[in-house]
């Protein structure tokens, strides 16, 4: 442990550490967790003040993956910015595709053909499952269980194979176009989804028996990291975080976009406010996404996959402003698009759900064990590139 008196002398570390040290109590330890810690999934750094094993204060330090996407949005034509979306959140890239395409379509009043609406739902929900699967495997890895991620990646691999058919990529999708999607799908696409749905449904009970009902996991995450509704409202936390606090808030219901109002699905809610509640919300959501995909594949109409009359991707947007929100795997994604009618958008604001979700960590972690910090961070399902943008 560092000598407390050393804090009075020449400061060490960068500005964040120096400032953080100034508010420290006597006899506590200042610890930098990250930015290269395996449980921070990318490069998140958390400054911690520890009293023994207990967290007195915490402060996440961001910016290690900041790429200034919002500036790129201002210097490229609207269509040229679309590939950036898959790089903002690489786990649910298609939801970000949708948020940006939706904002442009709403601003320029571009209609989307029926078939494209269904394809959007199918790929976005499959992508949500693949995001939740990766979170599930990685979270258990953080908690010391090595095997689950092998199962998760087995299923995820099948999903990536399916998504690769229309999108041509496996991670940083750029499949949406203004007025539709990039490519139509062959019959093999729907056929493989029809095979995947029963397969996934046979796996979910096994995951429950193997992992979710496991007492070691439950002792590790139940009643850990309490995030009540009131805290979610103050921080703007959404997605599984707020639904784990008993609030059935889901953009697909609250502010329906695309054709989500046509499908029969539930919004899973758990009321315990702890890491286990957030865990259960995501597990339950996988089944709901399967239900949506099942209905969408059954109803998939024939027709165009893109509006042939849609403006060119490099075209000008009409002047005006618009906000478009979608439900990503981590919560509410928002794009605020402002145009003055010029060649490039005037302003593109990206609202990342992880940004607000992670912010409450400092308050939530106060007084918990250091080992629980990992259980709490993982339960927030962070994607650092999205938080830093």
């Amino acid at each position, binding site marked *: 442990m560092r000598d407390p008196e050393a804090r009075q002398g020449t400061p060490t570390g960068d500005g964040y550490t120096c400032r953080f040290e100034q508010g420290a109590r006597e006899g506590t330890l200042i610890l930098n967790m990250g930015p290269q810690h395996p449980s921070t999934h990318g490069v998140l750094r958390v400054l911690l003040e520890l009293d023994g094993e207990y967290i007195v204060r915490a402060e996440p330090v961001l910016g290690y993956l900041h790429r200034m996407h919002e500036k790129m949005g201002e210097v490229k034509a609207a269509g040229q910015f679309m590939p950036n979306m898959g790089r903002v959140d690489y786990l649910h890239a298609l939801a970000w595709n949708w948020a940006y395409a939706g904002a442009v379509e709403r601003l320029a009043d571009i209609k989307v053909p029926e078939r494209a609406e269904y394809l959007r739902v199918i790929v976005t929900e499959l992508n949500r499952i693949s995001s939740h699967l990766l979170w599930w495997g990685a979270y258990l890895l953080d908690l010391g269980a090595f095997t689950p991620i092998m199962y998760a990646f087995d299923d995820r691999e099948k999903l990536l194979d399916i998504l690769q058919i229309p999108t041509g990529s496996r991670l940083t999708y750029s499949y949406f176009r203004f007025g539709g999607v990039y490519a139509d799908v062959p019959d093999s696409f729907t056929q493989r989804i029809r095979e995947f749905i029963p397969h996934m449904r046979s796996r979910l009970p096994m995951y429950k028996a193997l992992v979710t009902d496991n007492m070691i996991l439950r002792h590790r995450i139940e009643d850990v990291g309490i995030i009540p509704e009131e805290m979610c*409202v103050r921080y703007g936390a959404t997605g599984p975080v707020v639904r784990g606090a008993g609030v059935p808030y889901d953009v697909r219901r609250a502010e329906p976009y695309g054709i989500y109002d046509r499908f029969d699905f539930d919004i899973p809610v758990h009321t315990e406010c702890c890491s286990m509640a957030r865990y259960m919300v995501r597990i339950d959501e996988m089944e709901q996404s399967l239900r949506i995909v099942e209905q969408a594949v059954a109803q998939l109409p024939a027709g165009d996959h893109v509006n042939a009359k849609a403006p060119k991707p490099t075209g000008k947007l009409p002047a005006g402003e618009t906000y478009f929100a979608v439900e990503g795997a981590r919560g509410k994604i928002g794009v605020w698009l402002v145009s003055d009618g010029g060649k490039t958008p005037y302003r593109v604001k990206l609202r990342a759900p992880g940004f607000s979700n992670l912010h409450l960590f400092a308050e939530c972690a106060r007084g918990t064990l250091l080992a629980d910090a990992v259980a709490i961070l993982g339960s927030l399902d962070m994607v650092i590139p999205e938080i830093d943008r």
Partner: protein
Amino acid sequence: METMLRALNPLYLAREDATRTGLAWTVHLAPQALQGAARVFLDAGLHLEDICGLDVKEGLCIVYHFDGMEAFSRVEVRVMVPHDAPEVSSIAAVYAGAEWHERETADFYGVVFTGNPNPAPLLMPEGMQGYPLCKEPSARASLAATCATEGRGAEVLHSEDGFTLLDAPAPAPGAKQEKPARKPKEAADDA
């Protein structure tokens, strides 16, 4: 909602057409009215979606988005501050989540949020010169060129005397953007 927003003494208040803008309400507030408004929004159960800036001719427009969890009610709150003294009071004491959004806006635009509990850079390196999202004065559009009331289906409920920021711009020679805001197909196709 309308009664609540009117009680904030806004400079401007409009009910928006959500199918066109994704917003339910637009409010312009004087900087000193912001904190009180935040408290009202929190008591009404609205959550903070984001805080961002918009660099326009008339000044720096600081934009706050709030929304309800029980019913869609997105409010866009705009506060205009001058370029040479961009300062507004922090709402982090009310909405804890505002702290990071304000730090980000400070990084990108140089806005000073008085009372922010931790005004260190959030995403930009410490000691960086300049603000990446501030525009060259020649590249700035007027607020009305982007967010004019006209042509977006908004219903203006209140506009203070002398509030002209959102009046449709007078046609300027050679400027395409001066067309009414909503002529989507033609404007988008002429690229």
